[in-house]
């Protein structure tokens, strides 16, 4: 038995014990609510049994911090996770896995919005979180004070996505039957005093209580005094910018830090002027506005949130990928042999060295040689941004083009193409180790 592990268990046993008691309470309250609402017996009894398992088995075992009995993730699971996520394919598996998971949730949304299914998933994820806390490496990263909000964010997003999707699924089913959306049912007007004013008051009180408990229970992080000579490894941006920092793996700073963030802001502002669909205003729906729904979810949940989660929990020293149960070893080596498109074309395909201007050549000769060297990447990029929009307008987005007109369609298609640059660059990196499509380090212009 590793003495460090035992110390870790003794340190967190109190917290974990109360964590399982909280889970028991959560299920007990759910049992009561379900029984009050439906007077069914099977559901409440199962919930009560689950509650009893938490309070009667898991909580005492967690309090015990006993070497044999401490509830923990099975070691085959942690080792498998470390093998899969911590290996050289970690980023690929994580990203593709997230897309497959979210896609699966979307496709089978009618199944996953069922309250019983959602409740089982919530319990499973909370239980997995509790069991994982027993792992010191997991605890070190998940319970780091500034990372706690992100753990909360994951659960909040899960909850609200479930809430919105379940209402959208219901509204879409009602639309099929020719009935108005749920929101139409509560059409009558009520007075702001007392209904809204009191809701606001209760929200404020609950939120104040939550903030107070949070502030008392968890100290704000404070590290050593600032030193401009001691660079921490890894150096991370604040958590809400970690998606942008993650883009640095695939793009140079001018793209990842300036152009793409600016386009995110511009693109968000442009949404109301690009979405010409009058349906889906003021009620939850998916079927009435599938395209804009999928676009937003891809940008928000896949490209923004999963990258933040990746940057927060999986990126360790030297910006290498570490699985959640893996020790952050600063000496972990990841082979990096990425090459540019121009290398591929000239050296690998043509078998010659890169074209290079004579050293004493003038500015325009130099520039000419650079353009000649990078002609393939420049051509590909120009084709991508100039040829694809008309092609899209003529084929898959024909209906959009007709309704939107030239300008709006061009803005939308270019924004989508810019958004698609990130997944494209990711796939090219993973499959052919592509570093830059255009590599002009002479002018800091690498794409």
């Amino acid at each position: 038995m590793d003495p460090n592990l035992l110390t870790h268990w003794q340190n967190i046993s109190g917290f974990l014990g109360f964590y399982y008691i909280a889970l028991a309470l959560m299920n007990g309250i759910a049992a009561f609510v379900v029984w009050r609402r439906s007077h069914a017996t099977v559901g409440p009894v199962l919930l009560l049994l689950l509650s009893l398992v938490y309070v009667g088995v898991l909580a005492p075992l967690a309090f015990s911090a006993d070497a044999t009995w401490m509830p923990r993730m099975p070691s085959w699971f942690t080792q498998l996770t470390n093998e899969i996520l911590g290996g050289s394919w970690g980023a690929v598996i994580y990203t593709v896995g997230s897309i497959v998971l979210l896609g699966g949730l979307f496709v089978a949304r009618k199944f996953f919005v069922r309250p019983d299914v959602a409740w089982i998933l919530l319990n499973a994820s909370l239980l997995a979180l509790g069991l994982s806390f027993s792992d010191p490496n997991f605890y070190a990263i998940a319970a780091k004070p500034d990372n706690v909000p992100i753990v909360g964010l994951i659960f909040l997003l899960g909850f609200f996505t479930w809430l919105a999707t379940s209402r959208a699924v219901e509204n879409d089913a009602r639309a099929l039957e020719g009935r108005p959306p749920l929101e139409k049912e509560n059409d009558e007007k009520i007075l702001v005093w007392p209904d809204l004013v009191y809701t606001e008051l209760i929200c404020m009180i609950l939120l104040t209580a939550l903030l107070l408990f949070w502030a008392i229970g968890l100290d704000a992080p404070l590290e050593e005094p600032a030193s401009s000579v001691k660079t921490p490894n890894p150096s991370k941006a604040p958590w809400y910018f970690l998606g942008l920092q993650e883009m640095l793996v695939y793009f140079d700073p001018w793209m990842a830090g300036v152009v793409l963030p600016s386009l995110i802001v511009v693109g968000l502002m442009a949404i109301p002027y690009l979405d010409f669909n009058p349906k889906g205003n003021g009620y939850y729906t998916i079927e009435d506005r599938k395209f804009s729904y999928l676009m937003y979810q891809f940008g928000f949940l896949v490209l923004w949130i999963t990258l933040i989660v990746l940057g927060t929990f999986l990126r360790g020293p030297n910006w290498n990928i570490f699985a959640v149960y893996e020790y952050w070893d600063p000496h972990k080596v990841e082979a990096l042999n990425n090459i540019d498109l121009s290398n591929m074309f000239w050296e690998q395909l043509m078998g010659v060295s890169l074209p290079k201007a004579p050293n004493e050549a003038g500015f325009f000769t130099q520039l000419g040689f650079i353009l000649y060297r990078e002609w393939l990447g420049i051509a590909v990029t120009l084709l991508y941004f100039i040829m694809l929009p008309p092609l899209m307008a003529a084929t898959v987005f024909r209906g959009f083009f007709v309704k939107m007109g030239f300008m709006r369609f061009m803005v939308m298609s270019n924004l989508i193409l810019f958004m698609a640059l990130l997944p494209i660059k990711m796939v090219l990196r993973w499959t052919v180790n592509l570093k830059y499509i255009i590599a002009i380090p002479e002018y800091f212009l690498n794409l």
Partner: protein
Amino acid sequence: MPATDRSSLSDAIRNSQIWKSIFRHPAPLDRRNRIVVVLTNFFLHLHPVSIKKQGIALSFTWCMGGVTFFLFLVETITGVLLMFYYRPTLEWAFQDILSLRDVASLGILRELHRWGAHAMVITVWLHMYRVFLTGSYKPPREFNWVIGVILLLLTLLLSFTGYLLPWDQLAIWAITVGSNMARATPFLGYEGPGQALFNVGGIDMITSASDARFMLLGERSVGEVTLNRFYILHCIAIPLAVAFLLAIHFWRVRKDGGISGPL
């Protein structure tokens, strides 16, 4: 009888000159007075008098915009209190943060401020998520969505500028990583594409002492000038901009027809 005593005491309070001078009306119990109270009360006049029932259903609104505004108020109040203790200088910044934890009464002021800030970033995202999922940016509310995007950006900048103030390792390196991006701004960063275009008579105009990053930091690396800049941005400049835009944001909610709903 205790019950009578209590009611007579509360009656006495409610009938006192002080109480009546503060609350101009008795508690509104009938329809007419409930309308009047919203119209005549300074704090309530942001609200409409009546609202569709679904407009206040938590399962529809998630209350996230309101929660974000409340957190902004919490941040303002705790922020002002923190300013009494904190001096944005290399000599004192870190020491003052230490004292806030170890010496100041209660010692959770900074915790409230920091966790409130993280929560505010999250609730802004959730508010935007809800507004998108209900299609509430559609006409006639397009421009309010645009203001909302600016407010989202300002919220992130508020959090970012505040991140530096504790002046610990976490702070300066997060800001260093974040602000290094500005070095690569096209045309305006000294390592950005097109930087060489601003060249007058063979002299580069965009250098490490004149580029976008320098404007942000006030020097070549994160130091005392940066601390001062971020302090002023965090405590004065950005909050003023947020307050201004919030006023428009709320006003537009009312003018654009209240909270969205199906036609």
